[in-house]
């Protein structure tokens, strides 16, 4: 018996030695990078160059990691472009650094990551991607006085909390829900709506606004069903919806949910038209749903990429470096640029000094003219309705949006 037990004990011993060993090695490693920039910031070397860190948060793992990567790439491109310009602030050449973090689209992780960025002494944050993570994280940035610009969190609550640090560079869900809901009821002539949401702050918020818009336009909501953002089987709720025979199905959720849902709609022989908001309005949806995505009507908060006023150069650069745009990379690009622009005008990278300048932004970005109202929402944000035709997003109509002054 002893013979049998010995290896077990040895392994456990070896494992614990390894763990202890790792722990010891880990400590100096983790501590090493921290003092370097901290030392560089207050006492710059004779060469007047300063490293300024900007945080970016989006889900880089999980079902919508492709959207998170898209946002982060937009921000990276902006940082590269800003560095190429050798911007001088307060007599020093600024080298911007993007600290990309992963919040897994999870509200709890979102706050942990937010605190991590605060501790890493970033001067501003671009993100988060989801409304569900952006809203809880915004309280942490607000306490630390850090400007936060989300390129894609569309839930109205984000800017309704009275935080002077919270901004967004695209229209919110009140506007978007009303445009897509009214479009379905009026232009598509839908009388009976079935509405599904994924129970996230974004999906639920947008679905509620669509329901309001549909009812205001005289339509009825015959089914209100729910799923979650990690589900792949929707046949049970779709079967229920089929029995109610709606004209239109609206999904408040992301493309990762919409793709398989569209296929299952087809398999169940449901004839209703499918509509969704910006979370599902991506090339990824077309990839996931294949032929079942034909005829889908969807909306994005913003202008279509080809109509972005100053977007041509961005489109070329981005496609060359990172490939196809998903949805919001032009907006995360602009969000970084708005922060940089505010720092330039304040002639300071200190969040206390440049935060007031963010609110006064009047910036010509690749997505159009960016100005904020008193809550931090973009003034006159655009909403575009698309139809998926021949495997591509074709623009049906755009509302709002100001072209940048040339």
């Amino acid at each position, binding site marked *: 018996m002893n013979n049998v037990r010995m290896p077990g004990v040895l392994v456990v011993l070896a494992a614990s030695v390894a763990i202890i060993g790792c722990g010891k090695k880990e400590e100096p490693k983790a501590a090493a990078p921290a003092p370097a920039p901290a030392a560089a910031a207050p006492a710059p070397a004779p060469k007047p160059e300063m490293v300024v860190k900007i945080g970016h948060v989006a889900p880089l793992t999980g079902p919508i990691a*492709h959207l998170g990567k898209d946002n982060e790439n937009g921000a990276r491109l902006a940082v590269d472009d800003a560095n190429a310009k050798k911007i001088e602030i307060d007599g020093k050449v600024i080298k911007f650094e993007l600290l990309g973090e992963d919040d897994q689209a999870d509200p709890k992780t979102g706050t942990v990551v937010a605190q991590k960025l605060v501790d890493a002494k970033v001067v501003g944050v671009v993100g988060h991607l989801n409304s569900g993570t952006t809203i809880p994280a915004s309280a942490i940035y607000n306490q630390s006085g850090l400007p936060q610009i989300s390129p894609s969190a569309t839930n109205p609550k984000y800017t309704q909390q009275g935080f002077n640090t919270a901004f967004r560079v695209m229209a919110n869900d009140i506007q978007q829900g009303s445009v897509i809901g009214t479009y379905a009821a009026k232009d598509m002539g839908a009388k009976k709506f079935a509405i599904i949401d994924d129970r996230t702050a974004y999906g639920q918020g947008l679905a509620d606004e669509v329901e309001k818009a549909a009812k205001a336009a005289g339509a009825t909501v015959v089914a209100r069903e729910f799923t979650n953002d990690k589900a*792949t*089987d929707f*046949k049970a*709720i779709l079967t229920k919806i089929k029995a109610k025979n709606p004209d239109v199905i609206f999904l408040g959720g992301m493309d990762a949910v919409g793709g398989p849902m569209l296929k299952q709609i087809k398999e169940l022989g449901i004839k209703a038209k499918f509509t969704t908001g910006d979370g599902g309005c991506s090339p*990824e949806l077309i990839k996931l749903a294949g032929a079942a995505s034909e005829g889908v009507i969807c909306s994005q908060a913003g202008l279509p990429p080809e109509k972005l006023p100053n977007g041509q150069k961005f489109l070329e650069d981005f496609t060359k470096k990172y490939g196809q745009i998903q949805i919001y990379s032009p907006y995360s690009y602009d969000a970084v640029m708005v922060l940089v622009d505010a720092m330039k005008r304040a002639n300071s990278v200190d969040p206390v000094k440049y935060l007031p300048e963010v609110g006064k932004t009047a910036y010509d970005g690749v997505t159009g003219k960016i100005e904020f109202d008193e809550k931090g929402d973009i003034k006159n944000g655009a909403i575009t309705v698309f139809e998926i035709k021949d495997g591509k997003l074709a623009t049906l109509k755009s509302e709002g949006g100001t072209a940048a002054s040339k």
Partner: protein
Amino acid sequence: MVRHQRLVAESLTMDTLLQQLINGLTLGAVYALVALGYTMVYGIIGLINFAHGEVVMIGTMVAFTVIVFFAGSGMPPLLILGVGLLVSVVVCMVLGWALERVAYRPLRHAPRLTPLITAIGMSIVLQNVAMLIWGRNYITFPPMINKQIYEVGGASFTNVQVAIVSLAALVMLGLIYLVHRTRIGMAMRATAQNPHVASLMGVDINRVIAMAFIIGSALGAVAGCMVGSYYEIAHYQMGFMLGLKAFTAAVLGGIGNLAGAMAGGLLLGLIEALGAGYIGDLTGNFLGSHYQDIFAFIVLIIVLMFRPSGLFGERTGDRA
């Protein structure tokens, strides 16, 4: 009130019920196959192999890679699918064997908690390895079978669903035969009853335990291919939720009990479909379909309250 009753009546029609039963049966067949992997390992060494969901995921991913590789070769689609299934079964068998050899065998005499933590660790490792190999994006499964949609009594189902349910039934029958009619099956049952006595009788315990992992993983690979061709998408985190549901199914039926895992899987699939389909109407929209998962767990809790070892009881020959 009248309107509400009419809505209830609308959704309680026979064709809707039939459709929900078909939905639940397909889902349940997949759950049952995955649950068998949990239950086989638990029945023999009392370990909950939390990495089993990830084995299923790897099975889907491997099948995907093989199918994409052969997709343009002009081979008949069914043959490609067969090759994909075969390769993924073999890869998962090797993976299951390696998991046992590397992560669990050295800890066989450690306290029960240690291998459990290792299992969770292996699950995280496998997820991340899969992310490195296949990327973080959703992968679309190329549709190899031309999907036919049949309609019976107002309910529709596809040939893929028929294939899933019949293949699952076939595999389960094969497993029952293996466990109850073959030498290795007899050795497995003996080891489950008492590993020490079994080893005294000349049973090679290490080999039997390795076989349980290998067979369980092969079943997982088959389930993985089914999930892949049913939903036509795959993702490196897909194994987690599937594994959790299948584990629930195994507990529901009585973990360690093969028939229990099958019944538990089917039952869980049906509960989910019927729960999501009817809970809203039956409670007057007080509870909506977002209580779908809660519904399944409520049933689990009730079953465990009255039958703590599951519907069919924990493993047939208990160690006592």
